[in-house]
């Protein structure tokens, strides 16, 4: 058993590059999904029915779709429409577009629960449009929804493991290569699981730091 872990340690460069790719994918996808989700949540809150309805349909369909099917749609399905990605592009686009829907819904739910007064005060001070959203609406929204957004980022990390299917060299893919090269399945995948756990513990401590910041602001 110890010998198996020594084999994995011998392949540490491969495992670490997998870990780095998972982190890069998750951070990029998390940031882009949060940004696009914030924009999409403003569309969901539109008063014109037709615009909001389109966004609503996208969000609801994405929330009923398994991520793997969505990734397949982008990687195998889109080329028949003439849109072609390599595996990095497809993986990243799948993660971003899919999780944008979830982020938008999270932010919308938090937005509906926000008190009206600061927005009315903002109006009275002449804020409107994007400036209003950025300076008045968004900051309390982000603080209030931080725990749920954190959960969603953990979900992004976990969904990125599905991308091993389209041969993206992330952490699970690295563990698979180590196991197929040396036949040490338990040690290789357990190492990957523990590394994922580490990533999630970092995210959770980040969320609780934001929580403390929100407490201090109150």
């Amino acid at each position: 058993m110890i010998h198996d872990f020594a084999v994995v340690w011998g392949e540490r460069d491969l495992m670490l590059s997998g870990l780095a790719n998972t982190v890069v994918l998750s951070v990029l996808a998390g940031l882009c999904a949060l940004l696009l989700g914030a924009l999409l949540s403003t569309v969901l809150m539109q008063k014109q029915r037709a615009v909001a309805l389109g966004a609503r349909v996208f969000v609801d369909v994405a929330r009923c779709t398994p991520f793997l099917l969505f990734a397949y749609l982008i990687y195998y399905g889109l080329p028949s429409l003439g849109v072609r990605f390599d595996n990095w592009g497809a993986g990243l686009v799948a993660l971003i577009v899919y999780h944008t829907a979830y982020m938008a819904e999270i932010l919308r739910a938090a937005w509906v629960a926000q008190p009206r007064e600061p927005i009315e005060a903002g109006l009275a001070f002449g804020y409107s449009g994007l400036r209003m959203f950025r300076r008045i609406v968004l900051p309390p929204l982000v603080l209030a929804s931080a725990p749920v957004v954190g959960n969603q980022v953990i979900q992004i990390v976990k969904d990125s493991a599905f991308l091993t299917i389209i041969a993206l060299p992330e952490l699970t893919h690295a563990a698979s290569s180590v196991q197929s090269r040396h036949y040490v399945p338990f040690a290789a995948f357990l190492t990957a699981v523990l590394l994922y756990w580490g990533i999630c513990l970092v995210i959770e401590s980040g969320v609780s730091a934001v929580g403390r910041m929100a407490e201090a602001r109150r």
Partner: protein
Amino acid sequence: MSSADVLAIFGGALTTLLLSAAGIAAGLPIGLGMALVRWGRVPVAARGVAIYVSLLRATPLVTLVLLLFFALPNAGIPVGPISAGVLALTLNTAAFNCEIWRAALMDFPKEQIEAAQSVGMRRGLRFRRIVLPQIARVSLPGLINEMSLLIKVTPVLAVVGVVDITRAAVRIGAETYEPLPPFFVALAIYLAIVFALVSVQRWVERRQLQRAAAA
């Protein structure tokens, strides 16, 4: 895409539903058991459950299913793709169910337990007659929500070769060189399943609200 292909995807849907049902049936009581271990502050075991839940919450199901599929036969336990898949689904959903049950147990009013004690109910009877019916009602919406989350991770079965909805669709796409139609059929089936679960969840929540208003 022929009608036989559509039927093949529906066959995959049957597999998806059966294996999810197996995972749910096993995961519900295991989750309840683990929640009780934490609620009762059983020494060592409670700590173990806490670590288990934290670890499983962070583990991608793909990695878990690959771990089980390749490592268990290595340890002398023969598993096929289906048993490895169901085991992974169960381990995963049990961890999330544990948190839902535990939240209901933490909110359970202490006075009721004291009242049951004062009329001489033993621990087992107290749990069966007083605690369980009430926490089951409180947890139900959360548990149904977890079921729809479980449906959304079942394509992980396709990774180890079980022909579920996703794998059936991919296979047909590869045979006909037209991947989009089977993907859309698969998408429609997932939409129907998850939508049905969400509707049940909303119906349960509404009924509970009405009951609370009537009481």
